[in-house]
């Protein structure tokens, strides 16, 4: 454990995500203690002191990577420290650790694939490397998959936080999970216009392992959220503790999450082929009509010019919850500062003080465990850059199902399939539409506005 070999020092130095886990502000002191307790197995302070100079030169006990508790949701749900501890314990039992993932059969996940992706970057056979997630993904998406790796704050858009189990670019209906192949496609192609690169040079089995690991982090994150939200529904006789029974943990909490992932393969959108003899010019004209029409209403957000400047003050679901929390904390503190404490009886006073402690702690968690909320821009359709792929089929999926987690609504049921194809054709024509007579009095080229 405290060996100074190349393998362990590699994982210590080359894995900034791990370092962040240990030192991030807003991590409760209790959590940090636990992490320290985990690395110094002897528990003797003098031994730790003796190891200090070694640590300073990059040699010494490698801290074991740990999953970071969802402190945002814990604060949101106002969990007690004992309850946070219970969630951490249950999660460790159900999902293991970043170095040693375990999964229950109910998750439908393949543990062998996870082993390949999990753990520190290492090699046991010449030419074979393990720890793929931490090699390729963790710096942005974080060891926990919370989208808060060390680089996250500097990227726009932010890396995906897998924990709510919501993915944007997929072939399934809006609320459904992505299929395994959808995740593979994103890994292969990257997401154009974002910081997500293509991993097309990795072998098929490695991509496959990474997609499986993303599902693992996502299922784990969703279970964590469900557990934290379940405290609210407890009755008084439960005494603030979740039942640690198979019936509750597996059947009530895990099963709905796992089933949603397993049913994704059956939820792929049935896309009728675009008619082969379609008159493209007429189709584009029809698509334009629909784009501006009341039914599809694309114009409201993507703008009269198609530059994505219609609705410019909205947030996606990940940012919206953080924004809301900032408002809760600021509003709460403001209200508390105005409270006339001298008029309160002792019960009210202790409640008021407990509120203050909670608000201040929540504020710290927001600073340390959440990224600054950022607005979402409707896509500029004149650049020809589409995050979720540029095939006509990809655009069809986006329009039909909308984009989960983003404001983009589903046209399904409102706009018939052949009309969706017309809109697809019109959108594909937009980057080449240079004389811009679209309701503006001067030629409008994408570059002019950038």
């Amino acid at each position, binding site marked *: 454990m405290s060996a100074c070999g190349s393998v362990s020092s590699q994982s210590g130095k080359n894995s900034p995500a791990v370092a962040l886990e240990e030192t991030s502000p807003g991590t409760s002191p209790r959590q940090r203690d636990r992490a320290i307790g985990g690395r110094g197995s002897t528990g003797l302070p003098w031994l730790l002191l003796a190891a200090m100079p070694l640590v300073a030169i990059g040699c010494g006990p490698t801290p074991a990577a740990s999953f970071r508790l969802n402190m945002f949701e814990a604060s949101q749900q106002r969990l007690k420290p004992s309850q946070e501890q219970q969630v951490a314990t249950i999660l460790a039992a159900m999902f293991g650790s970043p170095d040693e993932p375990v999964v229950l059969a109910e998750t439908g996940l393949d543990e062998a694939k996870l082993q390949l992706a999990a753990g520190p970057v290492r090699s046991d056979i010449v030419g074979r490397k393990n720890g793929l997630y931490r090699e390729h993904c963790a710096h942005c998406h974080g060891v926990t998959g919370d989208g808060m790796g060390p680089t996250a704050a500097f990227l726009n858009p932010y890396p995906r936080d897998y924990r709510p189990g919501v993915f944007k670019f997929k072939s399934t209906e*809006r*609320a*459904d999970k992505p299929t395994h192949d959808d995740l593979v496609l994103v890994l292969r192609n990257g997401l154009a216009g974002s910081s997500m690169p293509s991993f097309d040079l990795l072998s098929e089995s490695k991509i496959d392992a990474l997609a499986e690991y993303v599902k693992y982090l996502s299922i784990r994150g969703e279970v964590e959220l*469900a557990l934290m*939200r379940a405290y*609210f*529904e407890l009755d008084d006789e439960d005494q603030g503790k979740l039942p640690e029974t198979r019936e509750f943990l597996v059947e009530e909490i895990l099963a*709905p999450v796992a089933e*949603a992932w397993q049913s994704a393969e059956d939820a792929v959108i049935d896309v009728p082929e675009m008619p082969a003899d379609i008159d493209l010019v007429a189709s584009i004209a029809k698509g334009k009509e629909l784009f501006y029409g*009341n*039914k*599809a*209403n694309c114009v*409201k*957000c993507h703008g009269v010019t198609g530059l994505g400047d219609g*609705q410019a*003050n*909205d947030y996606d*679901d990940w940012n919206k919850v953080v924004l809301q929390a900032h408002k809760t904390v600021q509003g709460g503190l403001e209200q508390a500062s105005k409270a006339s404490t001298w008029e309160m009886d002792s019960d009210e006073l202790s409640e008021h003080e407990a509120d203050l402690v909670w608000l201040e702690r929540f504020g710290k968690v927001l600073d340390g465990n959440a990224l600054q909320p950022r607005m979402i821009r409707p896509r500029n359709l004149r650049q020809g850059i589409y995050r979720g792929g540029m095939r006509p089929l990809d655009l069809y999926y986006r329009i039909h199902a*909308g984009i*989960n987690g983003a*404001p*983009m*609504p*589903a*046209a*399904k*049921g*409102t*706009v018939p399939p052949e009309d969706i194809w017309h809109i697809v054709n019109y959108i594909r024509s937009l980057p080449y539409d240079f004389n811009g007579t679209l309701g503006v009095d001067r030629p409008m080229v994408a570059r002019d506005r950038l």
Partner: protein
Amino acid sequence: MSRPSHVRTRGRCLVFLCLAAWCGQAATAAEWASLKGRFVFDGTAPTPAAITADKDVEVCGKHKLVNEELVVSENGGLANVVIFVRSKKVTVHPDLADGSKADALVLDNKNCRFEPHVGFVQTGQTLTIKNSDPVGHNSNIATMKNSPSNSLIPSDGSADVTFSRDEAIPAAVTCNIHPWMKAYLVIRPNPYGAVSGADGSFVIENLPVGEELEFQLWHEKGGYLDEFTLGGKKADAKRGRIDFTVEAGGTDLGDIVVAGKAF
């Protein structure tokens, strides 16, 4: 002829009574009655802030839209409070147990606002989202346990949604095109819930008589209401949870006076 059948009926009654005694409280609910009351806002309610409709101004701008998170009538009635049965073990009226048989709850996009502002839905019950406006809307329902949905609702169009699982926290409904629009849906596994009307009054029908049930009170701005008086006495309602037993013939809680500082 009539004698044997009479005997048989009595025999059945006896079995029923024994069963009732054996099952305890739950089976005594052969009778159903309503619970009603009226929520009153104690104090002077602030004037609702006006909303500047900056999208589809030609349509939405002509309605005098105001923030609806706290709606109080002239005589103090507190609208949009949800009261629902929280107890999991509640005897549900056999005709009402299946939500899919209930009438659909209609959520209308009308005058660039949602009508109603707060709705109560049972799992399985159909929610029909309509659009009576000349402009297009979308209805983004932020559920936690059910699949979230976000459909385009064109003018005169509609979409049906059902929820298979109950939600512990009221789900917000928003329109991304008109960001000021907001509504809430309370989704419960049984039909026992109501939203207070414009005058603050509510009624929950067909509750099992004699069963002590835990209710929960929620308001958009006040959260889970725990500071209120019932019949002039301070109620004990931690996190908005309070027990009531409905009596035969119905129970009227009278005025439930909520302290203005709770908002």
